[in-house]
């Protein structure tokens, strides 16, 4: 069989983002594979330098479309650390609720995304139906379904709407009641287990070599390496939640960890809703002229635990009204580029799309 070249190209039903994977295939086995990034590149870091600190609040969530709140939180924490702003107590708890709701919506999308390459579209439809309820809750909180611009430097844009607690509680109870049904449809489904058991391995030495973080690392190394535990930000230290880990990291283990994290998120949100104090939600910055607000000079690397791993903003300010340099460390950068080049060959064509989903490769983060 001579070597054939196939494109898991920008236009492919299995490719969720917009990146092109060049597969050199012998029969069904992939011999060499390269990810060609850059389809979604829009000069994001150059754009950040041209907008003032306040304008960037609207540009920030557009980095990674699947989890915009993680970017807002990382940017807001970075600016607060540079400018030395202290966020009021209630804002911390509201931020945690928004972040955990975003994490549930991403895990649901990732779990539904498992249905695409394996062909179980019913799982995808059910997961997206629930995710849509979260988007409606976000629309009530911040006015927009996907890009909320809700977490701003200095706290949260405005307080939670009255009566949002009932919606959140109702959604959480509904999701929890159908949790076993979700497990039967996906991870306990024998036809899907045949696709994800003992395949797409991620051994521990690969984790350190690539720099994989998040679910990939926790499923391979077996320790609770989660930024919310290791470097608690925004009152995560006052919430009891445990971090699921595993040592034998195949696709099933990673997806199982994501489902257990889903349950933990539900617990976190419930605790936040009880412990949330009354009071101020935002510290105004820039005494009225927010467009000419200057942040003192300094370097900071602010980090947030996204659903795929450590998501960091490296910010440099030279004391002006515009950020001097902003670097974005995407959580799926290592798995995406180097992982596909070194660890995708050897699998079959059918596993390529599944490999990209379970490893959590999100192409807007790679191109920025």
């Amino acid at each position, binding site marked *: 069989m001579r070597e054939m070249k196939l494109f898991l190209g920008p236009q492919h039903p299995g490719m969720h983002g917009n990146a092109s994977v060049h597969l050199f295939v012998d029969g069904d086995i992939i011999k060499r594979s390269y990810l060609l990034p850059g389809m979604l590149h829009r000069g994001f870091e150059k754009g950040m330098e041209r907008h003032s600190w306040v304008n960037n609040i609207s540009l920030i969530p557009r980095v990674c479309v699947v989890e915009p709140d993680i970017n807002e939180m990382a940017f807001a924490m970075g600016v607060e650390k540079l400018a030395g702003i202290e966020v009021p107590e209630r804002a911390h708890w509201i931020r945690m609720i928004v972040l955990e709701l975003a994490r549930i919506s991403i895990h649901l999308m990732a779990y539904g995304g498992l249905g695409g390459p394996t062909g179980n579209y019913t799982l*995808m439809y059910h997961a997206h*139906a629930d995710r849509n309820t979260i988007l409606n809750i976000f629309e009530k909180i911040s006015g927009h379904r996907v*890009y909320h611009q809700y977490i701003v430097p200095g706290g949260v844009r405005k307080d939670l709407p009255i009566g949002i607690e009932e919606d959140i509680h109702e959604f959480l109870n509904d999701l929890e009641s159908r949790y076993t049904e979700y497990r039967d449809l996906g991870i306990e489904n024998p036809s899907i287990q045949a696709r994800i058991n003992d395949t797409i391995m991620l051994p521990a030495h690969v984790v350190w070599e690539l720099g994989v973080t998040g679910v990939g690392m926790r499923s391979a190394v077996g320790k609770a390496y989660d930024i919310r535990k290791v470097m608690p930000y925004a009152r995560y230290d006052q919430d009891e939640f445990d971090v699921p880990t595993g040592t034998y990291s195949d696709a099933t283990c990673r997806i199982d960890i994501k489902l257990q994290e889903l349950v933990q998120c539900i617990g976190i949100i419930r605790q936040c809703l009880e412990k949330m104090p009354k009071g101020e939600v935002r510290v105004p910055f820039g005494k009225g002229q927010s467009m000419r607000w200057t942040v003192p000079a300094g370097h900071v690397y602010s980090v947030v635990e996204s659903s795929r791993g450590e998501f960091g903003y490296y910010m440099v300010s030279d004391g002006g009204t515009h950020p001097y340099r902003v670097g974005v460390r995407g959580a799926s950068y290592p798995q995406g580029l180097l992982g596909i080049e070194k660890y995708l060959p050897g699998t079959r064509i059918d596993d390529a799309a599944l490999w990209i989903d379970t490893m959590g490769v999100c192409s807007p983060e790679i191109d920025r």
Partner: protein
Amino acid sequence: MESTKFSPITKLSKEEVDRKWWEIGDFFRRNSLWMLMYCTGCCAIELPPAMTSAYDMERLGMGPMATPRQADVLLVTGYLSLKTLRRVIYTYEQMSEPKYIVGFGSCTINGGIYHDSHVVINQLDQYIPVDTYVAGCMPNTEAVMNGFIDLMSLIKNKKADGWKRYKKNYEWYKKNQIDSLGEVQVHDEYHQ
């Protein structure tokens, strides 16, 4: 005196017959639009809720199709960097006639939030013929469904003729593409 019941059958000219067949074809094309599974930009995150149980695009007869040959609607969702635009032009030219384009988000109308970026084009209409736009920076899912219904009504009153415009002034489109993109030829780093 002739009988008024059977008026003489007016002999339809060839164009009228074609137009009648075309209207019947439009009825079928309108009610079974197949969109191409190609998430070109960040507005594509509003397609899953539109396709799945929340808003269910299949009620309108629309469904995702895997390859450009089979699809008739190309949804250009979100901003277009130069690399994506080259591949969108490739894909558009592979689709079978009559084909339609829906531009999502303000980035296809005037460059949106990336109007000053060195890699994002500002106006999609210069490069490929766009039939209808859905405004908004990430248009809401209801707006997306309204966009589809707008496209259907355009097909109904025969205004969705983007592919005819593309054929008629092909050189103008090609000149714009070459000016902005340098060359539309796609040769990637790993092309042996």
